[in-house]
Every structure is written in structure tokens, then in C-alpha cells.
């Protein structure tokens, strides 16, 4: 349902073939599309507005690079600005307070606090070699304390024994003194989910904050969140003063505008991403990835840059000539396989091509692996130059030789040859469509498992 931003902008710029600098009216037309793209990605409206203003300042008068189209140029400017606003990669959780440092975890109901507490606990214990104690202050949700206890057991992180009936603030104090007694570096405090407009519960969390003086207060928010993101983040900041944001369910397929909304509205860094339900599904925040995702596009300019880096011009021209003549041979295929590997494998390429979101999803299951690319290269290398120019020479005994030489099986060789045949015939078709067709329909016949 979401068109890629580059495609949208392509429309805007259709009759504007590559003139020098971007004019104000070009930029305004483009920014209308950018606005829609951001809103469709669930970026909150006030943030969209200020963001667009920022882009306008940068884009008007910018020179369009020779190698890219005006649409791609605008996308790059938007993308760069987005990365800037999203802020730096800051994975670190702070502990400069005297041990034990409290880390308070807050957020709306069901956002993923308890799971995230366990993930952070496990990460601190394993990677950072910290001694960690976790405590649930959630006396409201059924079995919430039990949930953290079970997760602690799974993750090998100690949890504070549950005392039924104890109030959240008292649990927090007990956790801190237990942490001190046990010589812990960090005490993770998981709290009950609460609405940012629930006065009583916001007062409760403010009191807990006051009582524990945490080194970090992390707001755990769902990356599927829509327009509500700004209000929630602002209110939590006001009342509890978080030091960082953790976005969960980044493994979903939402465009994740909430990241931009929350970051821009509060200035709080996004520290970590939750990328699954398992204990180790916790990742450092990469602004560039999130930016591409929000824009619903691949890194177009990155594609252009990397493509020119890896493809030598003459080579490209030679290949084009061969394809045109229908003389594409196994040597050329080997060259292509090498290029694909250099460009970061199929995932890398597919991620960069605009408008291939759908193809990419289809490919998700039939994932292409680098090992396969290497094996196929090896097969071709084990052929004689004559065989490479004329695949028909490869009879059964030659195939056996090639398989042996490349450490593969005859089946592998056959599979490669079959793909090569398909690829040649598709290339002839693509040839008729012209270059645009090649981009639109994805790279034809790339080897797949």
C-alpha cells in the first residue's frame, strides 16, 4: 500500500530532466510528496511539519549531482536530514551513578517493558559482565511479577524474590538495598504499564524515580505506534524525565515513524531496538536503517554510489553490448556473481532498489546466500575457457570434471546451467524492454536456492 518515496518523487520530477540546482517550486512539489510519505509512515504531524521545514532549507538551491536524478537527489537530502534528526547511534546504557545503578523501565501497557527488562539484563550480564538484579514493581497486571521471574530464570539473571502485597515503591527500595547487599552493578526496575494521562500512576512512577535516583530511565515504546507517539513521549519526559527510548517490535513491518516522532519531540536518544520476542532480540539503534524504512525506500543514492564504485564503465558497456547481441556467456555470469557479492549480496541490492519491496518479500523465504554465490563462481572457474563461451559443450563427463574441480556435485553444476539458460532468455526479454525494464522488474534470473 505504500509507494516508495522515490517512485512518488519520480512522478513529480518527470518533466524536469536534470537541470542544475533545485528551485523552490521543485522542492515544494517534492516536499508535498515527502509529507505524505512521512504521514503514511506514522510520523506525527507536528514533527512532519518541522521536519519538512528543515529539509526545505537544505534542498532549495542544492545542486543535483550528475549521476542521479532530481528525485533521487531530493530523496538523499531527505534521507540525510532524517538521519541527522534521528540522532547518533547510542547503544550505551549509563552507570556512572554509584553502584548499584538503577535502571527504571517505563511505558504504556503492553509496549514490551518486561521483555525488554529481561533482554537488557541478559545483555548486561553476558556482554558487559555486569552483576544484575531485576525486580518487577508491577503489582497490577496479573502474573506480571511471575513473568519477570520466569524470564530471569531463562536468561540467567537474578530476580528479586516476590513478596505478595508489597507496594511498588517499597519493592523498589527493597530491590535497591538487595542490590547493594549482593554487590550488584545494576538493578533493573520493571514497572507496570500506565497511560501517560493517568495522573495517579504517573505520580507513582515519579515517586519511584525520586526514591531510586536511577542512572537511566528508559521509555519502552512500540514501533507500531501512530500519531499518539508525540503526546506519550512528551508526557513521560515531563513527568519521569527519561534518558532514553527503546523501540520494540522493530521486527514488524511497520514503517516505524514513531522513532522520528519521539526523538524529535523529546530530544531523547533512541538507545535500543527490540527485534523479537526472544531474550537476545535486542539491537543497537542504526539511524540509517530506520531512515530508509521510514521513507519506504531503499537507499537510492547509496545504490548509485556503490554501483559506480563496483561496476567499471567499460565492463558495463561490454556487458550491455553482449546482452544486446545475445552473446552473454558463463564468463559474464561469473563477473555478475562477483559483482553481486561485492555489492553486499542479494539482500544488499534488493534493499537498495526502489520499488522492489514486494519482490523482496517474495525473496525473503528464498534467501540467497553468499556461500551459494561463491560456489557458483567456483563452478564456472573450473570450466575451460571454451566451455565458458559455449555451455553446450558440457556433456556428462565434463560436468563430472567441473563438479570435482569446484568441490560441488553434478547436480549443482546442472542447476547453475539451468539458471544460466533462464537468465539468458530473460535477458533477451529485458533487452526488448530497455534498461528501465531491468530496474522495474528486478534483476532477472539471479541465482536462487
Amino acid at each position, binding site marked *: *500500500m505504500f509507494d516508495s518515496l522515490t517512485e512518488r518523487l519520480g512522478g513529480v520530477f518527470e518533466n524536469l530532466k536534470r537541470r542544475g540546482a533545485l528551485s523552490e517550486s521543485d522542492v515544494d512539489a517534492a516536499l508535498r510528496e515527502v509529507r*505524505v510519505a512521512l*504521514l*503514511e*509512515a*506514522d510520523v*506525527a*504531524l507536528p514533527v512532519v511539519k518541522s521536519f519538512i521545514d528543515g529539509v526545505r532549507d537544505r534542498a532549495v538551491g542544492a545542486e543535483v549531482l550528475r549521476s542521479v536524478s532530481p528525485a533521487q537527489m531530493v530523496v538523499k537530502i531527505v534521507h540525510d536530514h532524517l538521519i541527522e534528526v534521528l540522532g547518533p547511534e547510542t547503544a550505551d546504557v549509563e552507570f556512572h551513578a554509584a553502584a548499584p545503578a538503577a535502571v527504571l523501565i517505563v511505558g*504504556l*501497557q*503492553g*509496549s*514490551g517493558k518486561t521483555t525488554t527488562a529481561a533482554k537488557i539484563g541478559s545483555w548486561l550480564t553476558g556482554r558487559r559482565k555486569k552483576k544484575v538484579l531485576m525486580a518487577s514493581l508491577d503489582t*497490577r*497486571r*496479573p*502474573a*506480571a511479577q*511471575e*513473568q*519477570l*521471574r*520466569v*524470564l530471569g530464570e*531463562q536468561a540467567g539473571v537474578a530476580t528479586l524474590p516476590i513478596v505478595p502485597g508489597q507496594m511498588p515503591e517499597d519493592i523498589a527500595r527493597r530491590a535497591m538495598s538487595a542490590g547493594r547487599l549482593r554487590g550488584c552493578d545494576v538493578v533493573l526496575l520493571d514497572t507496570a504499564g500506565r*497511560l*501517560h*494521562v493517568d495522573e495517579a500512576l504517573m505520580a507513582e512512577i515519579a515517586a519511584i524515580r525520586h526514591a531510586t535516583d536511577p542512572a537511566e530511565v528508559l521509555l519502552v515504546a*512500540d514501533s*507500531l*505506534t*501512530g*500519531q*499518539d507517539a508525540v*503526546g*506519550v513521549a512528551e508526557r513521560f519526559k515531563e513527568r519521569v524525565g527519561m534518558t532514553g527510548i527503546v523501540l520494540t*517490535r522493530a*521486527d*514488524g*513491518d*511497520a*514503517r516505524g*515513524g*514513531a522513532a522520528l516522532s519521539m526523538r524529535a519531540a523529546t530530544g531523547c536518544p533512541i538507545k535500543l531496538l527490540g527485534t523479537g*520476542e526472544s531474550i537476545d532480540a535486542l539491537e543497537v539503534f542504526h539511524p540509517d536503517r530506520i531512515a530508509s524504512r521510514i521513507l519506504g525506500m531503499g537507499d537510492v543514492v547509496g545504490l548509485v554510489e556503490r554501483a559506480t564504485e563496483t561496476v567499471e564503465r567499460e565492463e558495463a558497456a561490454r556487458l550491455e553490448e553482449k546482452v544486446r547481441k545475445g552473446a552473454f556467456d558463463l564468463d559474464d555470469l561469473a563477473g555478475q556473481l562477483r559483482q553481486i557479492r561485492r555489492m553486499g549480496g542479494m539482500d544488499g541490492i534488493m534493499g537498495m532498489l526502489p520499488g522492489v519491496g514486494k519482490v523482496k518479500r517474495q525473496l525473503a*523465504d528464498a534467501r540467497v546466500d553468499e556461500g551459494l554465490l561463491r560456489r557458483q563462481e567456483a563452478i564456472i572457474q573450473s570450466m575451460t575457457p571454451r566451455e565458458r563461451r559455449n555451455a553446450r559443450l558440457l556433456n556428462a563427463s565434463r560436468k563430472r570434471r567441473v563438479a570435482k574441480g569446484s568441490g560441488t556435485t553434478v547436480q549443482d553444476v546442472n542447476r547453475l546451467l539451468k539458471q544460466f539458460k533462464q537468465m539468458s532468455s530473460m535477458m533477451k526479454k529485458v533487452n526488448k524492454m530497455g534498461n528501465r525494464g531491468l530496474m522495474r522488474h528486478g534483476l532477472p534470473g539471479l541465482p536462487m536456492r
Partner: protein
Amino acid sequence: MIERDGEQSGWFSRLKRGLGKSAGALSEGITGILTKRRLDSDSLEALEELLIASDLGVSLAARMTAELGRSRLDGEITSEEVRRILAREIARILQPVAIPFEADASRKPYVALVVGVNGTGKTTTVGKLAHGFRRRGCATIIAAGDTFRAAAIEQIQIWGERSGAEVIAREPGADAAGLTHDAFRRARSRSADVLLIDTAGRLHNRSDLMAELEKIVRVLGKLDNSAPHSVLLVLDATTGQNALRQVEVFRKICGVTGLVMTKLDGTAKGGVLVACAEKFGLPVHAIGVGEGIEDLQPFDAERFAEALVGLG
């Protein structure tokens, strides 16, 4: 952004007093925009933005605003009126899908499967529904179908105690489809009226987990070829446009028959439900308005629409 004169402030403050906490910001916005009493293109744009801010989605917001503009652009119009018109239009879309959740008494047990992405409120909703059925005197059984998440079984067991419904559970990690099988057998042998099946949260883009749901549906179909009689998708009101994808995929894979939207007691308006109604036409059965056992209400199209435009 626009000055408010003395005459306006009277009804403005009256209005404000009457507003619920979730409608405050939006209604203030619309009120602010329209004190001018003339619907020009500026105020139309601001209206569009207010609809966007309630998660209606860009295209639907644009369309509704354009329609409003066509019909009333030259006339004088009060703030109240404009909100009424919008609310009426939204309610018109929602009316056909506002269908209460009822168990067909001829099915014994009536089987309802509750599905959705992680943390939306499935388990809580199962607890609330069980309470509702129990109060109407229906013998209700809950299947603790989330065998995956830590302490999910304990959580649903507490809801069972609260509602007085029997909970059928297996050990953590057990096969959910197998458990469903057990629970159905049990419900039938006790001639229970209703069987509510809680399931583990799952993202719709996880095809392996979606296949597991498919299996549960298949197992039920083998036990009673009309089961499950309903498949409820629980949506979280704070979710933005991704809710459309959720409905699309869950419907395709496990035949969702109706929606429940939770957490409408917050500030999120759940406007994406309007887009869902337009696109899929699935019944919206109920809304969650709190964490308590009573906090489930039938979906009321008019009230929802009014809250959306700030007419509390």
C-alpha cells in the same frame, strides 16, 4: 492561531467541560480553527490535519475534508456544525460494522478464537469476555492457548478466577493446537456454552507463527466443521497505519470475523479503525477502555465518531 471573541468563549468552555480526556486536544484544535465561522481552504487544511492526527490516515482524511469542502465551502458554519458533519460522515462509515459480539446458542460450544500481534490486549479481552458471558449465565471455558510467553498461563488463570470460567491449560511450551483440541473436548463433554481461546501474540509478518494459527483453526475445524465460529482480532488503539496490514494478513490466514479495539481509554483515537471499516468491512464488536474486568464496551459507531472529532 485564530482569535477567539467573547461570544465564542461561552460555548467553548461549556464544550470543553463536556469533553472526555481522550478527545481534548483534537476538539480544541477544531474549535480553534473554526471560530472564524467560515470554512475556507486554510481551515479545511487544518481540519484535514486534525483527522490525520487521530490516525485516520492521509488519504481518507484528505478525501473526507475534500467532500466537506465541496459541500460547505461558501457557507457560514459553526465549529459545532462542522464537527457534527464530520462525525456523521465517520459514523456513516462505521455504522454497518458496529455489531455486538454474541454467541450463537445453537453452537455448543460456541468457539471464539482470539488473535493479534503482541501486547495488544488479547488475554485481558478474553478475561473480560468470559466475565460478560458468565454474567449472562453461559458456561464458559477458556483455553490457555498462549503456551509460549513467560507466565502467560498464570495470567489467564487469574482471569479465569476473576470471571469464574474454567481454564484449560497445559505446561509451558506445549503445542497450542494440541491444547486447543483438549479444550474443545473438555468444553463439549461439559456441554459448555462458550469456549474462548487465548493465543500467543504474533506479528503478522512472521509466517511461521501465522502457520501455527492456521493449524489451530484447522484442528478446530476437524472437531466441529463450523468452528471456530468467530475469530476476533484484537487491535491496539495506539497502533498507527500498520493496523491495516494486521487486519489484512490475519484475515487472510485465519479468517478473522470481527475486531476488538483496546486501550481507547488513552489519548489515541484509533482512527485507523475507520479506514479498516472502509477497506475490509469487518464487524467491530467491542472496545477496551481500561484494565479492569468491566472495561469492555460494545462498539458504538456514533460515540466513537464523536470522540474522534472531539464531541465527547
